[in-house]
């Protein structure tokens, strides 16, 4: 019983991409990493739908997988759209007319929602003028880079193909790093930007760790962001970018190949993944 390796590609490539997501987010310059992860997630989600669609007519299991993927993507897209609309509406109702909305709240908090940056009076009181610039530049970088849209794309893609799930967290981290580097550039001082992030995180207090598993000694995102700013500035990751996009190309090239021949081995590939072959 021979199984054509090609048949596994719609599953293998996203799995490889998901494994590679975290290293990509850490090694590539954050802006490049964000775009590579988004394009990769969207492209791979589509590329894995194409062969399923082609097989769906003749294979009940493929048809079910295809239906589940499309339904998952559609539900996620609807949820994202609704969350973005709610956030925009709420952002309009916030006090003030400009981008910045200051809210009277002693807790130390700051975030951006599409269109607005919200900062508590507690946060403003904890930072001097230069430190505030780091904070504003970071949050405004989220807005001008439209990071919420990139995040929405990856969430929809990973809902359509759950193998891509780890890319959500990787993109989330990459966009935070992107905003950090923009903030550091705005004040011209990466060490200072690192200190502000660290200071705010320490002042905000700790929460019980939500990470699961035994012996998870990996540092959380904040220490990694601070360490990245204290280290050397990111270098171009041309080789990694090409490799990541090559992965997409590889998946994109095989998809029409499989579609062209509906009796091609992918059926067996899918059945093997699902369980014992009849």
């Amino acid at each position, binding site marked *: 019983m021979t199984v054509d390796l090609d048949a596994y590609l719609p599953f293998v490539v996203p799995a490889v991409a998901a494994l590679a997501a975290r290293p990509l987010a850490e090694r590539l310059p954050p802006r490049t990493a964000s775009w590579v992860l988004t394009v990769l997630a969207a492209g791979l989600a589509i590329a894995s739908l194409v062969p399923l669609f082609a097989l769906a007519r003749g294979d009940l299991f493929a048809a079910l997988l295809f239906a589940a993927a499309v339904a998952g993507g559609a539900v996620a897209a609807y*949820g994202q759209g609704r969350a973005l609309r709610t956030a925009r509406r709420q952002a309009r109702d916030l006090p003030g007319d400009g981008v910045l909305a200051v809210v009277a709240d002693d807790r130390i908090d700051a*975030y951006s929602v599409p269109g607005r940056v919200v900062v508590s009076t507690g946060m403003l009181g904890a930072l001097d003028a230069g430190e505030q610039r780091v904070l504003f530049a970071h949050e405004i970088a989220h807005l001008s880079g439209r990071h919420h849209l990139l995040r*929405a794309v990856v969430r929809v893609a990973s809902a359509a193909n759950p193998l891509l799930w780890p890319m959500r967290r990787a993109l989330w981290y990459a966009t935070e790093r992107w905003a950090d580097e923009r903030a550091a550039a705005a004040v011209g001082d990466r060490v200072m930007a690192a200190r502000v992030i660290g200071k705010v995180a320490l002042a905000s207090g700790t*929460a019980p760790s939500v990470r699961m598993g035994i012996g998870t000694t990996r*540092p959380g995102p904040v220490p990694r962001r601070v360490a990245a700013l204290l280290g050397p500035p990111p270098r171009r990751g041309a080789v990694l970018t090409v490799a990541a996009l090559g992965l997409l190309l590889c998946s994109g090239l095989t998809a029409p190949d499989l579609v062209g021949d509906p009796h091609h081995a992918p059926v067996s590939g899918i059945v093997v993944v699902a369980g014992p072959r009849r």
Partner: protein
Amino acid sequence: MAGGERRAAGALEAEVMTVLQRGGRPLNAADVQSLLADDLAYTTVVTILTRMHAKGLLTREKDGRSFRYAPVSDEPGLVARRMHRTMAAEPDRQAVLARFVDSLSDQDEQLLRDLLDGR
């Protein structure tokens, strides 16, 4: 879901809020009705005022047979709290709400102190 209808209600609430803020004193439903640019039925104005009071946006005091309404003074704080509440109910808030820092685990806190002290 009637998104358009909800939005219209939100716009009306904003208008009522503006009228009450400009009024500078507690107003009853008839006052609000006469000051609103739109030609709204008295019962509609009462409904909006009651709903806004229920949401915690307005305070009210009994005045004869009706109520007089005034905006809650801490409006910015209120809007922020309302926003927090709504966003907390959104399953996808992580994607739309970009917080400056997440909370730290105990282990992260120590790591962060070490990192910052190293400089």
